């Protein structure tokens, strides 16, 4: 079990952060922008090719896999964009775009004295990034089969083997809920999660839970919890 998959309901935590800024350090914008450019230039997208040398795949799933692979103490220790900085730098090194030695040396340069950023690049790269942001990457597909469940049906949430990435919130595993809404059509996910079960197009449901079933005697009243769940994560409630 990975703590990152089981945040929902965790006890003993701090008061809520009331920080309304998106970025709390100027450098955080840079790593956010790099990540967004990588998503836009990722090779699986059906967008015009550009002179960018980025020729591999990078989606949210890759970023999330990195965060879910972290030691859970580090996950809580490091701020949001610090995790991005670590994961994205590691990706560029692992895929051979840069070497760790290059990155370390350049970091020292920037650390010791303000250095000018290099200039240049092909405008077609930035045009593709803009196109991606304006159009997105639609995961909706035709249904390969009719949905297994209808609104009002009771379902049990599955508990597949823990893998490197999932979209199943841990606090819902094995819990009983009721289908609140069957979304139209079917949805792919960004990668195939293997035995976890998502990736190819499948129906998605909004499932309603009684918080007292999730955290018996240890939640609040007059409160309902809803989660969007891929069909692979649901079984009929009658199944043992």
């Amino acid at each position, binding site marked *: 079990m990975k703590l990152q998959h089981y945040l929902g309901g965790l006890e003993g935590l701090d008061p809520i952060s009331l920080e309304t800024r998106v970025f709390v350090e100027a450098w955080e914008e840079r790593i956010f922008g790099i990540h967004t450019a990588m998503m836009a*230039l990722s090779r699986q997208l059906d967008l015009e090719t550009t002179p960018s040398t980025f020729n591999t795949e990078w989606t949210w799933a890759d970023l999330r896999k990195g965060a879910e692979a972290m030691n859970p103490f580090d996950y809580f220790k490091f701020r949001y964009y610090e995790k991005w900085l670590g994961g994205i730098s590691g990706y560029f090194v692992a895929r051979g775009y840069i070497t760790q030695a290059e990155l370390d040396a350049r970091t020292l340069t920037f650390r010791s004295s303000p250095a000018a950023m290099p200039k240049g690049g092909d405008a077609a790269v930035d045009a593709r990034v803009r196109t991606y942001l304006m159009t997105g990457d639609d995961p909706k597909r035709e249904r390969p089969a009719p949905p297994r469940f209808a609104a009002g049906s009771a379902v049990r949430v599955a508990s597949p083997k823990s893998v490197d990435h999932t979209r199943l919130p841990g606090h819902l595993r094995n819990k009983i809920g009721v289908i609140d809404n069957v979304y139209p059509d079917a949805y792919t996910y960004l990668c195939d999660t293997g035995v976890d079960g998502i990736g190819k197009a499948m129906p998605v449901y909004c499932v309603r839970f009684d918080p007292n079933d999730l955290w018996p005697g240890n939640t609040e009243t007059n409160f309902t919890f809803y989660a969007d769940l891929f069909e692979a994560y649901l079984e009929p409630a009658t199944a043992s």
Partner: protein
Amino acid sequence: MDRFEYSKDREATNAARAHALEALLIEKGVITSETVDKIMAIFATEMGPFNGAKLVAKAWVDPAFKKLLAEDTMAAVAQMNFPTKGAGAEGEHMKAAINTPEVHNLIICTLCSCYPWPILGLPPYWYKDPSFRARAAREPRKVLGEFGLDVDPSKEIKTWDSSAQIRWFVVPERPPGTDGFSEDQLAALVTPEAMMGVAIVKPPVN
């Protein structure tokens, strides 16, 4: 170094590393020297909470639009002439949860930080914070209280966990004291916090 200790030059090193990475990626032709700035400009002017505020203001003055927003959110968004034309990255499929006198909605993402970019831009730090994501799932009233919002016990709280591909947002209730306000005046009152459910829209202060 101890696991729980931060290096003394934590932020300076982070900044240097982020700039070093960007410089190397520009030199190696992965991105251009304009890429990051252009992305940030889009979020400053084209994809941001200013769009969501317009949606909310329109819903407040136009009951038919509010009904459409509830029933077919994307069709309503498509009427707004936003730069993304009713889609856009992280907004391909959005869904509005409408606050009423009986129901207060709260949007969370327990697995990461899913957020409807085209209409709300990028998520604030409170939304990405693991403590918020963990606690809002189990004790939303207490969490909202820490934000300064006391929800009456008679009002139901609905918490929506964005764990699949749908990006959620809240249409808050119109505050009193805004009769005769234009849509622009109304939109100016709407905050990102209200559109995710950790705040309500307050009456104008005069």
